[in-house]
């Protein structure tokens, strides 16, 4: 087995053993921190242990029993869902506009839509904080949703643009020639065919908002503090095993989203 050639240039598996070991270690390094918290969160003792000596759901009970954590979770979901909705709609129509017009304007617009991805988050955070103070948006759901929408727009525009790039614009033309107005042709012919790209953009938008820390640290507070803000403060100030329970739940959510995104990609490739 090990002596068999691994490549067409006749390198054997044995000769590449070091590579396998190294890559295995790196992959372990990547995955272990994502998984190790899960068993620990079921620990029955007052400390985090691995492997846990006794099992219990006490940290999950602590999480669900805390009004503060529950409220923050609710805020995060609300903000993330509203952001997903707003960013997906704005990003999709913008991507369509960019794809359909030729010339300098759409190129410039594309640049503008990529900006939120290029500007360091800390700068976005203090900029929002500063302007929101004047608009009275600090500590509001609306302020969070607007800021997160801006951060999510690049991902939606990228996803939908790539969907439109592989979409045959003749489809929309033929719909028009058959009697559909342009908006109607978009809704009945184009949108159903790029829906996987739109959904994957929406998924990115959700994750961007739900996991966002830095901006939320500055502009969310009080009853509208996000889950990430609360977790950040908690991790910085003490090591509360409750966070292990929350982290495990969040990892579960990540796996769900990952599976969702992979399914969308598969679906996209099959067509």
């Amino acid at each position, binding site marked *: 087995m090990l002596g068999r050639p691994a490549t067409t*240039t006749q390198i054997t598996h044995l000769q590449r053993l070091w590579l396998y070991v190294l890559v295995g270690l790196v992959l372990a390094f990547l995955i272990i921190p994502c998984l190790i918290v899960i068993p620990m969160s079921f620990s029955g003792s007052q400390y985090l*242990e691995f492997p846990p000596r006794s099992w219990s759901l006490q940290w999950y009970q602590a999480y669900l029993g805390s009004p503060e954590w529950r409220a923050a979770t609710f805020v995060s979901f609300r903000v993330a869902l509203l952001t997903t909705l707003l960013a997906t709609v704005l990003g999709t129509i913008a991507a369509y506009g960019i794809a359909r017009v030729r010339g300098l304007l*759409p190129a410039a617009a594309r640049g*503008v839509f990529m900006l939120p991805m290029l500007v360091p988050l800390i700068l976005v955070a203090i900029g*929002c*904080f500063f302007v929101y103070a004047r608009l009275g948006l600090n500590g509001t759901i609306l302020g969070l949703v607007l800021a997160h929408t801006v951060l999510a727009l690049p991902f939606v525009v990228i996803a939908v643009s790539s969907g439109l790039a592989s979409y045959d614009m003749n489809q929309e033309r033929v719909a028009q020639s058959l009697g559909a107005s342009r908006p109607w042709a978009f809704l009945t012919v184009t949108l159903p065919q790029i829906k996987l790209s739109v959904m994957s953009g929406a998924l*990115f938008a959700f994750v961007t908002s739900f996991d966002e820390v830095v901006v939320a640290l500055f502009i969310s507070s009080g009853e509208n503090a996000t889950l*990430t803000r609360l977790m950040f403060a908690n*991790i910085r100030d003490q090591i509360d095993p409750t966070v292990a329970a929350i982290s495990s739940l969040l990892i579960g959510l990540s796996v769900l989203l*990952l599976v969702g995104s992979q399914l969308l990609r598969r679906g996209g490739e099959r067509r």
Partner: protein
Amino acid sequence: MTMAIDLKGGAAPATLNERLLKRHDRRERTALSLLTAPGALLILVVLILPIGWLFWLSFFDASGEPTLANYARMLRPVYVKTFISTFQVAGLVTAACVLLGYPVAYLLSQLSERTAGILMIFVILPFWTSVLVRTYAWLVILQRTGLINTWLTGAGIIEEPMPLVHNLLGTVIGMVHVMLPFLILPLYASMRAIDPVLMRAAANCGATPAQAFRQVFLPLSLPGLAAGIGLVFVLCLGFFVTPALLGGGRVAMWAMQIADNIAVYGNWGAASALGVVLLAVTALILVVLRRIFKVDTFGGAR
């Protein structure tokens, strides 16, 4: 129904209906361009205007007098130390990412799409997991009473717990974990695009596997590597969460300095100046990379 024939243009036959058609053309282009307006407007209000405002602010002191003091201050030792430390951390993290990420991307690109797809889960799952969650996990693993120290002392290998976190080491470990996918994903994509026949051709020409790798594969993978390096380095420069939690106050980072200037001192001028310079450095690195390697650094990344 009207015959829309431009009578004034009738003298010059080539201009039949010309103005009418131009008007229609303009109207359509405007309508389509306006589709980008809502999103662009939001970006303008929430991103561009605030940063412009900060830029303006950076030229005034606390009493509202115009000054360059906010920029002059950056030459003070405490700031210079922060810059040096930030670049040091970014450099260390980037180097570690290249050393660890290149072999992974290489091996995965040589495997079948199916196998690589399965192994890719190890790279993508962290990518989809909240940075906070991962940072917390590293804290649990590395702290004085954490997994590694407990095991090592328990096994009698060490007497005293080692300081693995709340210092430079912990910060770098945590940041490498966050950044590694950003290097591996674009690099893997560019390596997949290299035609495997080229390696056979090189072997056919008499190159040893090592020579073929060095002289054919490596040069072809450089643009993808450059994209990954640029992305990781730039993200490190502005990174906040992981250094703030794993640095234990011993690792001064640019982004933390900005946050402190506002949260602790309320000094908007100083924070703005730091932010402006950070943005300028980030933009410069991206532009240079784009010029040299013709890569769109942020093209495919999340």
